[in-house]
């Protein structure tokens, strides 16, 4: 075990996120009793049901919520007992386990129960996002609608993919929502959600600026737990003051010279690529902290509206929203291996990164695509060492401490070696 002389200074403001998130999931659990309709959504598709007045779950958001409360393992066990195969995406298994628990009355904790939906929406940028809908449909006959979000490979792919997605939303998704809810889609509400989102993201971007500071006043983990306001809490008025509080606290820290990692700030600045390991945040942070390392940035947490200036729902909110994801912020391009190089380079330069950890999920290929090539490209381009840590976001049976410790040790040795060499050559 590493002994740590480093201490984490937690942000006070991020404690406010818990009640906001709890409230979201509590409202979902209470929706049926209030006569409200419920949707389950994956990918960027939950804002459409919000706009028509449904309560909506978000696949990855639920998984992180559940894992953060250490409730995922039990539900994964139920899924396995119900016949799910272990190599299957753990988010898929989690939802299968939850549906089995609800339908068959298995005991699970009250605060993570997910009511069965009136509609499932798959915003399919990962192909597996519709597989769980398909499975739920086959088992429970729940209504579904899918829209496809392909990742562009080249610049010339953007316009035709955007046009395709706009048609899917206008001709398939919105009519389905109108049919399920028995009322017209509320474009004004949709625009309102986008305006609030824009404001929240602008303030959130001010917070991001603090990741450029040395020493860091906060770590990526602080931001990871603050993601919900720009994802499934999007459009809620309280999301803007939340980031304002975080920003103000960060400013105060800089002024008072309080680093996130005490006593003297971080020794290593790490880019954490791939999923955030939701169920193991403190376990990983402990390992990093013991060496004075801080996770700083990563493609996944930067996926949520990094360029809010493109949000402008004035004329055609649906088209604008699609453009925001594609040609505006290039998000589905950065997600894919083709665009990863572009965003990796930006992050390494903007946030003065010393090393990269690629968190490779054994059951989700989304961020893994091209990972080994990408890391060697970055090593060549910037001379930055990198390691791969294999595991899972929520399934504890897929995490091995021995493997993680050895690889982390190797990473820090490589960074130290690189520093020595560059000092030597000076």
């Amino acid at each position, binding site marked *: 075990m590493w002994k740590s002389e480093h201490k984490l200074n937690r942000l006070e403001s991020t404690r406010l996120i818990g009640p906001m998130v709890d409230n979201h999931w509590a409202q979902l659990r209470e929706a049926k009793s209030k006569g409200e309709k419920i949707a389950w959504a994956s990918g960027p598709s939950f804002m459409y049901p919000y706009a028509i007045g449904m309560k909506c779950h978000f696949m990855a958001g639920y998984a992180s919520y559940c894992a953060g409360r250490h409730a995922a393992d039990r539900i994964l066990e139920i899924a396995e007992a119900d016949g799910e*195969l272990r190599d299957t995406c753990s988010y898929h298994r989690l939802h299968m386990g939850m549906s089995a628990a609800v339908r068959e009355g298995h005991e699970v904790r009250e605060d993570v129960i997910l009511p069965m939906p009136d509609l499932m929406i798959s915003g399919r940028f990962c*192909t597996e996002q519709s*597989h769980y809908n398909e*499975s739920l449909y086959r*088992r429970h006959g729940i209504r579904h609608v899918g829209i496809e979000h392909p990742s562009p490979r080249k610049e010339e792919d953007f316009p035709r993919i955007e046009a395709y997605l706009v048609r899917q939303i206008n001709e398939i998704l919105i009519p389905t929502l109108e049919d399920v809810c028995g009322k017209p889609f509320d474009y004004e509400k949709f625009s309102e959600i986008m305006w609030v989102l824009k404001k929240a993201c602008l303030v959130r971007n001010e917070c991001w600026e603090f990741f450029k500071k040395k020493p860091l006043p906060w770590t990526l983990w602080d931001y990871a737990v603050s993601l919900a306001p720009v994802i499934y809490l999007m459009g809620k008025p309280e999301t803007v003051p939340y980031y304002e509080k975080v920003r103000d606290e960060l400013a105060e820290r800089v002024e008072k010279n309080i680093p996130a990692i005490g006593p003297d700030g971080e020794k290593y600045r790490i880019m954490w690529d791939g999923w955030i390991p939701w169920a193991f945040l403190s376990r990983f942070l402990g390992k990093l902290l013991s060496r004075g390392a801080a996770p700083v940035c990563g493609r996944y947490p930067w996926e949520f509206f990094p360029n809010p200036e493109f949000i402008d729902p004035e004329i055609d909110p649906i088209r604008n929203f699609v453009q925001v994801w594609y040609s505006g912020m290039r998000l589905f391009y950065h997600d894919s291996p083709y665009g990863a190089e572009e965003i990796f380079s930006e992050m390494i330069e903007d946030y003065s990164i010393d090393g990269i950890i690629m968190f490779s999920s054994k059951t989700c290929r989304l961020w893994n695509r*091209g990972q080994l090539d990408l890391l060697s490209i970055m090593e060549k381009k910037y001379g930055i060492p990198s390691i791969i840590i*294999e595991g899972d976001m929520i399934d504890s049976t897929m995490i091995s401490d021995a493997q993680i410790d050895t690889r982390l040790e190797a990473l820090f040795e490589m960074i130290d070696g690189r520093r020595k060499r560059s000092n030597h050559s000076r």
Partner: protein
Amino acid sequence: MEEVLNRFLEITADPYNSIAQYKEKTGQKVIGCFPMWIPEEIIHAAKALPVVMWRSNEPVTLGHVHLPPYNCAISRSIVDDALKGKLDFMDGMIFFRECLISEEVPFILEKNIKLSYIDFLYFPPLYLDDVGRDFMLGELEIFKKGIEKLTGKDISDAALLESIEIYNENRSLLRELYEVRKKTPGILKGRDILNIVWSGMLMPKEEHNSLLRDLLEEIRNSKVTQQVDERRKVILTGCLCQTPQVEILDLIENLGMTIIDDDLFTGSRYFISDLEVNGNPLKSMVDRYFKRPPICPTKADFETHLGDYLADMAKKVEADGVIYFLTKMCPPQLTYYPDVKRRLAKRGVPEILIEIEHELISLEGTRTRLEAFKETIGGV
């Protein structure tokens, strides 16, 4: 019959060499397609040879440097082959988005090997009515232009129609062969059928058609008629994007089961549906893509159930059970399996799961499972 079967085997025993030789002989360009749903007719109409990319039988070495062990076997195998230079005879490769892994392979190839043409299409994996159809039509037009540029040949509708006819004949001959197998179980071994279908993915369809015609003729002339086969009949399903190891097929038969029909990737999935031409050939290709069967786990198909399809298939040929070949680490198959299992159980059809990996480390575990399965279905 042995002789004609050997001619199919010549192709599959060393696809790299046989395709390279064909290229040298004809001067035709060779385009690798991954996976099978690329309309090969477009390539064929430009007088080039489309081949469905395959899993090699060699241990993967270089592939491990680029892909983790939790990717499916075919992805590691293609990357491995390409990096070892074994696919250098290919003039181009075309991929489409059927899963996350199929998006990853072309990226790795582009970064590591030189190809004059590599493209990636976005076929809608959802049944999206006109929206999906229109989009796919656009993709096919782009694909057609790309092939025209590569080969320097314009692809006319007449050429497409001619290619479609040759491909449809191939599908129909293969279906005829499968009918023969149903009527005279055991007339061809599982490995023979696999080689026959697989070779069709690797060689010009005209030649494959001619071989198939010879084979069917020989079967007709041989005095083999409907036999009483006491062995338990099984159907194989799955093994997406690759061939299963022939040793597993032999094992099934050596344990006293007979393969009566299949729903394999290198099997009936490849030829079960014809390309029916209604006006515009490209539009007809879109129609075929959305046609069922086969029931494909990679497509978000809410209208059909693979379990029902297999149960109906089993009933039709009076099969005693279904063997589900799961391509290890293949998400579409992994997620579908529990439902197939449930539905088959509900329909009273016994089923067993067999995982297919790239390297066949030991057949013993598979043997034990298959033996137990055979007992379940009442075999002695």
